[in-house]
């Protein structure tokens, strides 16, 4: 019996050991194909390849694995960062978030802003060799607009009524309603184009995975996605823009959730660029001469939302008092080590259409007086909901302490984010909550409409405090249908003024995006939209 068991035990042991360390040992044999990839690399890049003993690869440590490599199937900035070298759209944003032509050479609106016609750049090809033309634009936009395809950005493109191919180099996009913000919408990274061939493959075989087979027109093409380890892109030899051809042999994006680890990777030379640095470490990195620190104001606005259905928040003076009660500078110094600026509008300064408002300067006396005038001399009790991440809790605690000084006793109640959204959507006792909003499009309409329009009440949209002002509604609606951009911007500015004055939020701060890179790498840009661009990067 025992002997039998010994044999069995031995067998089991060998099976386990062999199975684990050979069969599924983490040593990735695929990475050995690397030379093959660079071997197939373009002749133009060949000379550079031969010169350098070490292949010049730029490693970017990002905070998560991309959800998908299909630009129309993601909503997070991190996935877009990884997609950027591979994809391009008709328009793009410059570093001021102003839309400028990219795959288009020019565009023209009709008189009432219902149509915009693009002239397309000629000689642009996809990574699979197929040409970029008006049919591609139509096929892509029609595909994402079809709800049956279930793409995450489906709703984003609902402003389009029809896409008309005039000739191979001219395409007209007709909007459902007059829409002057259309060009901004089309400059967003999600309005990038996949090759017609890959779309046709998907149509022929629903099992074909567009999330994992990206084919774009960008300076880099897809090489490999090793699950939970990295996404690798290599230069595209026939990229149309000679001035912006790839200057490195590959870019590797590694998902590293823990920020401390990303910093250690930078220090150990394992990563050249790291995104989303916690502010505590930013100071330390900025003092080290071998690294550069980038800080760019983000498009995020942090706020304290209030449920305007509750009697206590119905008086504007109460809401303003709360704005006066918060020392924003103190909050920024205490919570984000100074890497932020005061939110001086409902949208962040780099949002297209932003208009600066007069900040509620910290003034506890005035706050108390306003509260007294509104009949809350002794303040009141409140519950402050927050996500349970340390950042959000720190903000909530700082806000609570400051509110207490004017007699508002708020109790911090942290929830896991999914639970919190659910509770806000279905008004399960909404009182105060810490919120954050960033307009995916980078322009005013998407910053204001989902939060302040009467038609945006929860659960369909983000107006979970039920703020409603007919004037704001009208300004937002009018701005969207105004063909004249200047006039539209004026209306957005007016809307921002009313909202800031009405104070349905306690406007807190706009945090900086903090990104670090090694001194050896140049040509890295950080867009306010949370995207890190390394298309033009070089390594010495």
């Amino acid at each position: 019996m025992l002997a039998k068991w010994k044999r069995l035990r031995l067998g089991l042991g060998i099976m386990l050991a062999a199975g684990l360390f050979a069969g599924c040992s983490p040593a990735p044999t695929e990475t050995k194909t690397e030379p093959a990839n660079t071997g197939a690399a373009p002749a133009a890049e060949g000379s550079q390849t031969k010169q350098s003993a070490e292949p010049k690869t730029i490693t970017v440590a990002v905070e998560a694995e991309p959800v998908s490599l299909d630009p129309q199937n993601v909503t997070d900035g991190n996935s877009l960062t990884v997609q950027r070298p591979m994809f391009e759209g008709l328009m793009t944003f410059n570093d001021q978030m102003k839309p400028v032509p990219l795959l288009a050479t020019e565009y023209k609106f009709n008189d009432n802003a219902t149509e915009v016609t693009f002239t397309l750049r000629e000689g642009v090809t996809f990574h699979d060799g197929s040409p970029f033309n008006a049919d591609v634009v139509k096929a892509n936009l029609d595909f994402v607009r079809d709800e049956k395809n279930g793409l995450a950005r489906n709703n984003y493109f609902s402003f389009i009524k029809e896409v008309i191919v005039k000739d191979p180099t001219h395409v007209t996009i007709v909007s459902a309603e007059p829409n002057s913000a259309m060009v901004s919408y089309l400059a967003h990274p999600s309005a990038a184009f996949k090759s017609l061939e890959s779309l046709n493959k998907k149509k022929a075989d629903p099992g074909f995975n567009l999330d994992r087979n990206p084919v774009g027109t960008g300076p880099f093409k897809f090489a490999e996605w090793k699950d939970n380890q990295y996404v690798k892109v290599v230069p595209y030899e026939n990229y149309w823009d000679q001035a912006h051809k790839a200057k490195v042999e590959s870019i590797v994006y590694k998902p590293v959730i823990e920020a401390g680890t990303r910093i250690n990777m930078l220090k150990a030379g394992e990563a050249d660029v790291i995104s989303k640095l916690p502010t505590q470490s930013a100071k330390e990195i900025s003092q080290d001469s071998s690294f550069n620190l980038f800080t760019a104001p983000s498009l995020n606005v942090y706020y304290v939302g209030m449920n305007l259905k509750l009697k206590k928040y119905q008086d504007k003076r109460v809401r303003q008092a709360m704005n006066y009660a918060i020392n924003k500078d103190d909050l920024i110094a205490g919570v984000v080590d100074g890497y932020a600026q005061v939110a001086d509008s409902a949208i962040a300064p780099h949002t297209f259409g932003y208009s600066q408002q007069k900040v509620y300067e910290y003034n506890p006396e005035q706050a108390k007086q306003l509260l007294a005038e509104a009949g809350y001399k002794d303040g009141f009790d409140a519950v402050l909901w927050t996500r349970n991440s340390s950042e959000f809790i720190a903000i909530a605690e700082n806000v609570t302490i400051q509110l207490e000084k004017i007699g508002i006793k708020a109790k911090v109640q942290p929830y896991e984010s999914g639970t919190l959204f659910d509770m806000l959507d279905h008004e399960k006792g909404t009182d105060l909550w810490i919120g954050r909003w960033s307009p995916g499009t980078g322009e005013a309409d998407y910053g204001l409409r989902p939060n302040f329009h009467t038609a945006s009440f929860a659960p369909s949209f983000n107006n979970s405090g039920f703020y409603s002002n007919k004037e704001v509604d009208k300004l937002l609606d009018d701005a969207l249908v105004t063909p004249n951009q200047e006039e539209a911007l004026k209306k957005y500015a007016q809307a921002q003024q009313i909202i800031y004055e009405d104070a349905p939020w306690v406007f807190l701060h706009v945090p900086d995006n903090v990104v670090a890179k090694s001194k050896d790498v140049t040509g890295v840009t950080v867009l306010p939209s949370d995207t890190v661009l390394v298309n033009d990067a070089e390594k010495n």
Partner: protein
Amino acid sequence: MFSFIVRRVAGMIPLLIVVSIISFLFVHLTPGDPIRVLYGTEISPAAYEMLKQKEGLNDPLYVQYGRYIKKIVTQGDFGISYRTKSNVSEEIVRRLCYTLVLTLASMLWAVVIGLAVGIISATKRNTIWDRLGMVTTITALSIPEFWFGLMLMQIFAVQLGWLPTSGSGGLEHLILPSLTLGLGVAAIVARFTRSSVLDVLREDYVRTARAKGQRGWVIVMTHVLRSALIPVVTMTGLQFGILLGGAVVVEQVFAWPGLGSYLIDSILTRDYPVIQALILLFSVQFLVVNLLVDVSYGLLNPQIRYE
């Protein structure tokens, strides 16, 4: 013995059915809506309804459960992840490999270090070595994994440059995460071994062995350890089962693509198919590890019989 194993395995089935029901209810009754968490306000109410319909989330819970179980039993299909749109079983198998490798390596550290420290402390009781060993284990137990991992990384990867900071690949990637993960378990093993060995050292047969002139080390290795190891094995097995559930903190710190980070991501995004499959998997792992522990008693001590 064989019939014992068969009976134990058969006994797992009703348990797993109960676990599957509980895990199903647990994920579906937790507040939070997977479609809303995944798409935010980016989709229209119509598209939202369509996606909900597509995932079958509008059906009554028992219908959804029936469909879920039927797919598992008839096709071995655990569904498609809402978040990554990938096949759940494939993704789990891929990540399970990493978790297994990391767990085994950690247990190796734990057993080697733990046994050595435990035995030395017991045999050299009340000496400086014993005190040193026990103070070290208490310290090891109290150090947060998160901090210890980053410290190891700082020393061995950033300062000395001997090992990579994180990621997975060769054996060199395994050293730091497994050491971080194994440290706490090593401390527990050491303390258990010490007290267990001390108990056995008081037995009559040990005194007899000494009386007949056997050397101290031989006695410990041949007579004492056999009996002393039983509680240690039980506890080690339990720890093994826990580690198999994925080491969330260590995986995050070292960017190790195991099950722990997968579970956390899925819970945060309400990825129902993944959460359910993982809970089932963890239950099975625990049951199997327990069975192995029971079986190993007989190997350590032939006096133990299975009824």
